[in-house]
């Protein structure tokens, strides 16, 4: 059973919409622009976050990620474009209370009253929502069970960020915004936080996060958009973004002693001490190379075969003069 509303009817609706819910996508952004003085922070950004997915906005510092998130959260006014969050305009404060009851957010800076305990801080925010989650359950979920009677000022930096996450979750939101949620976490804390985020998606929460960690986007996101210089330069899934799935494989090895790249049976590019061969047919090319080496009675040292990592794609997309736009809506 699907309820469609004219404003959202032109949007793709991949997820089944529960009956009576008057919006199709959790977040719709179209032609968004924002300038600070002469600086254009966001230059015509469009994307859609479907209900129930984890969507990541990946980009370097200063690319405009936080500005976009703050516009969606209602903290900043936009200069141009259309924005819908759970079917409502976050820039319209008159409907703000109803909207804020259904979204949760975790900002970059830690901001909590220092003299309350962990439990008191969470219980206070729980009182702001019509149907909050259980305080004890949320404390367990973010891994603060042993710290609930501790004053906030005595928490470590990582524990304060967990508390922040707890405050984002306590209202039992339909949509959760996470602004660089694991910056400053140690590797174990990051794994735990990722697990929490995945479990939330499993329970039906839509999650939109920003990050500049490739592995985070890779581990969490169902879909992601790479943003650079205020514009989206690629959009897709972690496996396909930037043509990653169709990109040519790369074979690296060291040249045998006494050989030059010109001696090889295929085209190769020397780089550092290694040579790199790019190929669309890695099985065949590898056979040619190893056959050649065996016939020569030599070896290909440090031989590896890989494809561009998400990091390679990201660096290629964000380190450039003129951004190339590569929409990749294969899902």
């Amino acid at each position, binding site marked *: 059973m699907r309820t469609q509303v004219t404003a959202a009817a032109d949007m793709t609706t991949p997820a089944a919409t529960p009956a009576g819910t008057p919006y199709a996508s959790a977040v719709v952004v179209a032609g968004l622009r924002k300038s*600070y003085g002469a600086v254009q922070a966001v230059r015509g950004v469009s994307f859609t976050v479907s209900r129930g997915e984890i969507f990541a906005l990946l980009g370097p510092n200063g690319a405009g990620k936080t500005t976009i998130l703050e516009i969606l959260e209602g*903290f900043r*006014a936009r200069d141009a474009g259309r924005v819908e969050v759970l079917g409502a305009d976050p820039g319209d404060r008159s409907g703000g209370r109803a909207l804020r009851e259904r979204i949760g957010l975790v*900002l970059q800076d830690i*901001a*909590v*009253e220092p003299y*309350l305990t962990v439990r008191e801080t969470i219980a206070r925010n729980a009182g*702001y929502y019509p149907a*909050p989650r259980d305080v004890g359950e949320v404390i367990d979920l973010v891994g603060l069970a042993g710290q609930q009677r501790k004053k906030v000022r005595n928490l470590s930096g990582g524990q304060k960020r967990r508390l922040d996450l707890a405050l984002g979750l306590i209202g039992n939101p339909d949509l959760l915004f996470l602004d660089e949620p694991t910056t400053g976490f140690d590797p174990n804390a990051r794994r735990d936080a990722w697990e929490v985020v995945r479990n939330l998606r499993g329970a039906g929460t839509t999650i939109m996060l920003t990050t500049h960690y490739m592995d985070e986007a890779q581990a969490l996101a169902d879909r992601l958009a790479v943003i650079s210089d205020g514009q989206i330069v690629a959009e897709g899934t972690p496996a396909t973004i930037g043509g990653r799935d169709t990109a040519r494989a790369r074979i690296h090895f060291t040249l045998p002693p006494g050989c030059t790249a010109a001696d090889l049976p295929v085209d190769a590019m020397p780089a550092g001490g290694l040579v790199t061969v790019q190929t669309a047919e890695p099985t065949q090319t590898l056979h040619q190379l190893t056959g050649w080496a065996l016939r020569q009675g030599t070896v290909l040292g440090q031989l590896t075969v890989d494809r561009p990592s998400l990091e390679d794609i990201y660096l290629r997309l964000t380190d450039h003069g003129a951004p190339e736009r590569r929409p990749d809506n294969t899902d």
Partner: protein
Amino acid sequence: MNITAARHAPRRDVGLLWHQIRYEQLSFWRNPQSAFFTFVFPVVLITIFGALFHGGGGSSYFDGLSALQYYVPTIAALSVLGSCYSQLAIVLSMRRQDGILKRVRATPLPAWAYFLGLLAHCIMISAIDVALITGIGSLFGMPLPTQWPAIALALVLGAASFCALGVAVASLIRNSEAAPAVVQLVLFPLLFISGTYMPIHSAMLNRISSALPVRPFNQALLGPFAQHTGFDWNNLAVLAAWGAAGALIAIRRFRWNPRPQ
């Protein structure tokens, strides 16, 4: 926490306000600085004055009143200034700088509930402080006042007006580290020329300070406290005008975001 009332909107809002007041109180009493300087300081001051001037009769220096009859209302006024004006100006600018206000803005808590909760919290702290100061005054022989309605009105109006001025100052301060200094810089000379620490016998100075907010508040309390007169409408009107001006600035200029857009 009143989650059971969640579905019923008006009852839920009342519950929300009470919830907010409770947590403001908790934050206040847990913070040693606010609890000491805001709450204990005026109590210590009146105890010292009580010990110093114990049993003194009326004197022309205090316009015919005993020293304690003079100091109990002015120190009571001082405690309201500390609980309302100073506390709000400092706490709000710090909360804004730390991003706590931005975070509050992200919750469904309506702005009116946040500010009404703070106002009620400040009035409660003021009321306890004034009751303690009056009690200590009577221990040192000051006769208890009889004009309670006039005192109550002056206290509530004073607390509300100085809360509004506190929020106004917090709206104008950009840097929270400057907040305590700015608050004291404004308050300290004003207290002196308004007769809080000693009576002022300069007609010109009194004319000036009568148009500023502190002296009208002192006078509106001095009458019913010490002379058993009723409502001091002129001074209450000046106080209310300052409160309205403060509220106007607060509404126009208050920012939740630590950094301007």
